[in-house]
């Protein structure tokens, strides 16, 4: 197991290098630091001097790859590529445009994000599986068809609709929870509504998908044999079908990770949760390239970690799977 994890981590390195090069090309080659300076200073009548000052201030005045004015190792280390791209690997993200340390900001904002995303993910998964199992019990009946129709309708509704309407009713009209904001001392008061909305908005997609997985398993020979042996329907569902359907469900979970990111971005900004999503959004709005670049890198690191975790969870879900 350990050797498997180590190998997978090593596999991740070329991918992260690729991500790194891609962001470098996007942020420094396609758009030169001069363009960035101009966009940032905003003025129509800016002088070359202003641009140079801005670049020196941000450390963008160095050459891209090779600094011929330095000698030895400094030839490579005193470049934009080294300072702004390679240092991402050791999670040294440098400074944001307002002078704050990005690494420190991210460490601080990680927890509210986690407090929202993790319960959202786990509660969502459990509820989707439960709903799908419930529907499967009535398979082939009118109830099943109605449920599928409801699922399709639910997933056709915009994510924004859930958020806007949810906030309107739960926070504004019924005053059950605060409208927005966050307090580290009592996070649940503020997080309960975003999590609820996140879970509800995911039911359509999730439950419909899991229903097809369960349906496929329910039609297999072992299910028929079990039924012939006199196993009750409930026992069949929980003891036989659910464990077997876990593998495709876990595979699908990886796909959810980017959606969690998007959810975090929209949800955190809407409900004023000071997490990574709202951090990213503020950076987009203020055109802070350093933060956006760091977040792209962190996003892919998290995605790869998610992939590895999924693979490990296979061994737990299916004893036949051996990681080697």
């Amino acid at each position, binding site marked *: 197991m350990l050797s498997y994890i180590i190998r997978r981590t090593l596999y991740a390195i070329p991918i992260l290098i690729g991500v790194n090069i891609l962001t470098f090309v996007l*942020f420094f080659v396609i758009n030169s630091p001069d363009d960035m300076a101009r966009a940032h200073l905003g003025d129509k009548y800016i002088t070359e001097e202003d641009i140079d000052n801005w670049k020196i201030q941000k450390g963008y005045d160095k050459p891209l790859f090779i600094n011929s004015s330095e000698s030895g190792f400094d030839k490579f280390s005193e470049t934009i590529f080294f300072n702004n791209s390679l240092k991402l690997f050791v999670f040294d993200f440098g400074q944001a445009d307002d002078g704050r340390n990005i690494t420190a900001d991210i460490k601080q904002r990680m927890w509210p994000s986690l407090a929202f995303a993790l319960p959202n993910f786990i509660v969502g998964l459990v509820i989707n599986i439960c709903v799908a199992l419930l529907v499967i019990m009535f398979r082939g009946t009118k109830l099943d068809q109605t449920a599928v129709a409801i699922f399709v309708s639910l997933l056709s509704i915009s994510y924004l609709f859930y958020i806007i309407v949810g906030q309107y009713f739960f926070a504004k009209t019924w005053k059950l929870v605060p409208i927005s904001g966050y307090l580290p001392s009592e996070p649940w008061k503020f997080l309960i509504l975003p999590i609820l909305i996140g879970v509800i908005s995911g039911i359509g997609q999730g439950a419909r998908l899991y229903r097809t997985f369960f349906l496929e398993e329910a039609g297999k020979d072992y299910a028929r044999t079990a039924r012939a042996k006199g196993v009750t329907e409930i026992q069949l569902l929980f003891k036989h079908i659910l464990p077997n359907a876990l593998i495709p469900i876990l595979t699908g979970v990886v796909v959810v990770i980017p959606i969690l990111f998007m959810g975090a971005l929209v949800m955190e900004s809407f409900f004023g949760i000071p997490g990574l999503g709202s951090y990213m959004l503020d950076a987009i709005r203020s055109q802070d390239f350093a933060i956006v670049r760091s977040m792209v890198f962190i996003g892919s690191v998290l995605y790869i970690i998610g992939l590895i975790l999924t693979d490990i969870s296979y061994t737990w879900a299916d004893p036949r799977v051996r990681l080697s």
Partner: protein
Amino acid sequence: MKPVILWSDLLIFILIVFISLFLRGMAKNPQVRTKWKQVFSKKLGVSTFIIVCAYVFIAFIDSLHFQKALPNIDQHITETRYETKLTSVLDLALGEMNTNIERTYSYPFSLKSYSKSMLKDDSGNLYRDFERLNHAGTHIDNDKNYVSDIIWQSAVSIFFGLFLSLFIIGLHKIWLIRSNGQNHNVYNYIPWNTAYITLTCVVILVAWMLHVGNLYHILGTDMSGNDVLYKTLKGIRTGVLIGTLATLIMLPIAILLGISAGYFKGWIDDGVQYLYTTLSSIPSILLIAASVLLFDVYINNNQQLFELGIEKADARFLALCFILGVTSWATLCRLLRAETLKISQLDYVQAAHAFGVGHARIILRHILPNVGHIILITFILDFSMLILAEAVLSYIGIGVDPSMASWGNMINLARSELAREPTIWWTLAGAFTFMFTLVLAANLFSDLVQDAFDPRTANGGHHD
């Protein structure tokens, strides 16, 4: 009038040609025809198809742009000057909806403004009251009769719509009888009655919106007094275009790389796999955000490239389509690669090799037609997903240009309006309803297409 073709207009024309060629190519194959038959023999398939087509048609006529000539005031200038804003055929069809601008918010079907303001009566005294709207119900003598007038006007337009659709249905029936006479009942599997009912509903709705929408503000007005129904209808083009162009733009790259990875294997396969693994490991929202941000910088630094404001919005729109395409590219590429790997092991491909057929010919003749269903399913499945994504992206501020009419922009502007007292719900309701209808119809239709074309689900599969 001077016709103007924006880049996105050009692409939608190419798209229409491409789709019709694709469908013709597929129709030649009898196997594919049976699959389409399976889709269109279902009532749901027919009615959702008509609804999606209605949306696509509106998007299409909204893509036929031209500039209106300005009235010539100076005798000495002989050349005609044109307006800087573009008009589309849809604008012509909608009549005065575009120019019926009030001062501020008003309720749907209301004759009065949303809020009170200072008014002057005939003798010059100031008083506070709800201001009469300038463009709602101006044709009626007494404002008290306006409910009965709305009912009357609605009845007129519904009657007209009914008449029009009966006319179309009649023409179609005649055509059907004639073609049936020639070759025996080819289209009998289509549930025509469902098609007629859906068509009638769509035609009546459109007629009602065109007629009553010009007399009243059906969905009220927004903060700057624009007709919400007009904005919602204009948003259709953006939604449909995002849903189709994003896939279209990435299609050539995905097909090329996916098939060559699966066919040639070796280092090409390794390279392509590395490429899509890397791209898909960046959460798409972050990649989109980064790219849009950088494109904004590019536009700001190259203002001179764009003559009209709308060209700038259009360029940003295409960039967004491209980026959305790139982020969804990996999935299609992976599927195509896997399928090509499977197909290139089959006997007929091996036989073609043995006969000395070239690589290009094998790919074009033997592999491409057999991965067509994957492309089709991806295209249709992505359509609704992309429309929903557009709204979220515009809401975050990395979507289409704020000057462009889109549902996401409408929602973005309207999100704080719910907090007002009394609540302003109609902008959100308009955008969400139109989006929901399109996405639901597309989802239901794509489900049927997937059931018919996906070999895993084709024979009953999970839909028992």
